[in-house]
C-alpha cells in the first residue's frame, strides 16, 4: 500500500514546478516540507489526480489518480485553498461530499458526524461555512477528507489559520491517523509543525527533492556542515583576529558592530579555544549563541 511517484516532471508554461521527482510513501505520517512555491502543493495535486505529470507517472495503490477516479474511494484530500460552498453548513458540506462516495443519506450523515466529532466540530457544525472562523473551516475541510475513512489522507497545509489549541488538536489527530496505519502526507513550510507530527520527512525546493528520510538521520547532517557561532564582546575585531587563525575556523564576520559571527567546521574545538582567547585579550563575553542551533537551520542548509 503505497504512493509511488516516478520521474515526475511538471511544467507550468516555462516554469518547472517539479523536476524529476522520485518518491515512494508508505503507511504512517510523512511530512512534505518546503518553502512556499517549492512544489509541495503541485506534488499533492498530482497525487490527488488534479494534475497530470508531463513526464513520469504517479500511482496511488497501483492506480493512476488522474485517470481512475475509483482511487478516491480510498483517498481523502484536504486541499490548501480556503474555499467552500459558503451557504452550506459545515454538516451539510461534509454530508454532501460523503454521499458522493456512494453512501446512503443515513450512513453519510453518521460518517460526517463522526468525522466532525474527530475534529471537534460537533457543536459548531450547523453554522454556515461563511460564518465560521478560519480554524473551524480548516477543521471542516479535514472532516470531509476523513469522513469516508480512507487509508490514504493528503493534508495540504492543514494548520494554516488555526489557533495554538486548534493546532495542537490537529497535530494529535494527524498522528493518530498515522498510528491507525493510514498513509498520511502533510505538507507544510513550518518545520516545527511537521516535526511535531512525524519524523519522516520529504524536503522539496525549487521543484526538486532535496532530502528524504528520518529527521534524526537528517539531523546527523549537522555534524558535517559548517556551523555558525555568534559571540557578543566589547572589541569583536580583536577576538576575530585571534580566532581566525585557528585551523577549523572558516570565516569571521562582524555583525551589528559588537557581535562576531564565526563559521567553524569543529564546534567543540571552538568552544574549547574561545575562553582562553577571550581571557588572553581581556574580553568579557556578553552573550553566546548559534543561529544554527535549531532544525530550521538544517532545513535552510538542506534546501540551499
Amino acid at each position: 500500500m503505497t504512493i509511488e511517484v516516478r520521474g515526475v516532471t511538471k511544467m507550468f508554461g516555462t516554469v518547472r514546478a517539479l523536476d524529476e521527482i522520485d518518491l515512494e510513501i508508505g503507511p504512517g505520517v510523512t511530512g512534505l516540507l518546503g518553502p512556499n512555491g517549492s512544489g509541495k502543493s503541485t506534488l499533492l495535486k498530482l497525487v490527488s489526480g488534479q494534475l497530470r505529470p508531463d513526464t513520469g507517472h504517479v500511482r496511488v495503490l497501483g492506480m493512476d489518480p488522474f485517470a481512475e477516479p475509483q482511487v478516491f474511494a480510498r483517498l481523502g484530500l484536504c486541499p490548501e485553498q480556503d474555499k467552500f460552498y459558503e451557504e452550506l453548513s459545515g454538516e451539510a458540506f461534509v454530508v454532501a461530499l460523503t454521499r458522493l462516495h456512494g453512501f446512503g443519506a443515513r450512513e453519510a450523515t453518521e460518517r460526517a458526524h463522526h468525522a466532525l466529532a474527530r475534529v471537534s466540530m460537533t457543536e459548531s457544525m450547523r453554522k454556515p461555512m461563511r460564518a465560521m472562523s478560519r480554524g473551524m473551516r480548516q477543521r471542516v475541510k479535514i472532516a470531509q477528507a476523513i469522513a469516508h475513512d480512507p487509508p490514504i489522507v493528503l493534508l495540504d497545509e492543514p494548520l494554516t489559520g488555526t489557533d495554538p489549541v486548534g493546532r495542537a488538536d490537529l497535530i494529535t489527530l494527524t498522528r493518530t491517523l498515522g498510528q491507525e496505519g493510514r498513509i498520511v502526507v502533510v505538507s507544510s513550510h513550518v518545520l516545527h509543525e511537521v516535526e511535531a507530527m512525524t519524523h519522516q520527512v520529504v524536503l522539496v525546493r525549487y521543484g526538486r527533492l532535496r532530502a528524504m528520510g528520518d529527521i534524526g538521520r537528517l539531523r546527523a547532517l549537522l555534524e558535517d556542515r559548517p556551523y555558525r557561532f555568534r559571540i557578543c564582546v566589547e572589541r569583536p575585531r580583536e577576538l576575530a583576529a585571534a580566532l581566525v587563525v585557528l585551523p577549523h575556523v572558516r570565516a569571521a564576520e562582524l555583525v551589528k558592530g559588537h557581535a562576531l559571527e564565526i563559521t567553524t567546521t569543529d564546534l567543540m574545538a571552538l568552544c574549547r579555544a574561545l575562553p582562553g582567547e577571550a581571557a588572553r585579550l581581556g574580553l568579557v563575553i556578553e552573550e553566546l549563541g548559534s543561529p544554527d542551533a535549531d532544525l530550521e537551520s538544517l532545513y535552510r542548509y538542506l534546501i540551499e
Partner: protein
Amino acid sequence: MSDDSTAMHAPSHAPPRSRYAGAGFWASFHLVRNLRRRGTLVWVIGLPILAAAMRLAFGVPADAIGELVLVYLVPLMSLMYGGGVLREEVEDQTLTYGFTRPVDRAGLYLARLTAAAGPVLLATVPAAAFAATSPTHGLRLVVAAILGTAAHATLFGLWGLLTRRPTWLGLAYVLVWEQSLEKVPGWLANVTLRTQIRNLGHLERQSFGPFGSADPGPWWLSALVLLAIAGACVVLAGMIVRRRELVLSR
C-alpha cells in the same frame, strides 16, 4: 479534539458501484443550490406568471409568447446557467471537492449541466405551455422547450470548457449568428438551433419574400437534430473534462 481513534469506522469503504453512481446525487445537490439563489427564483416564478399575464390579461398572441420564450429566453437562460457550468467551480476552487471523489468526471460534468438546465426548464416549460393553442400544440411547445434547453445548455457548456468567455461568445451566437443565419434564404437557416426549435414548437417560420422560408422537414426530425446536438456536445465535453486539468494550478 476527539482522541477516540478506535471509534472511527473500521475500514468500510463505499460499496462497489458504477463510476457514474454519485452523479445523480450531485445533480440534485447543485439543482437545490441553484434554486435557492434569489435570481433563479425570480426567473422560475416570474417567467410563467409573465407569460400567463401576457396571454390572459393583455391578449398577446400565442405565437408571440412562444417566440419570446423558445427563440429568445431558452437560449439566453441556457447561456446564463449552462455557460459557466464548470468554470464557476474552477474559479471558486471548489471543483477539487467533486473531482476527488470516486465518480467519473464526465458524470460530474453532466450532473452540473443537469443542475444548470433545471432552472431553465422550470421557468421556460410552463411559460411555453401558455403559448399553446391546443393540447397537441402545447405538447410540442413543451418538448421544444425541453430539447431546446438541452441543445443550448450542452452547447454553451461545451464552449465554457473551450473558452474563458463563453458568455460573450454565446451572446454573439444567439443574437448575431443565429439571427443572421436564420434570415439567409434557403437551406442554410436549417443549421440554426432556432429554426429547429421553431419547427418543433410549430411556431411561424421566418419568411423572406420570393425566397420563402427554410424547410427543416417534419417536426420529429427537428427533435432528433436537437437531441443529436445535445448528445454530441455532452460526449465532447465529457472527453474534455476527463482529459484536461481543470484546477487552477498556480
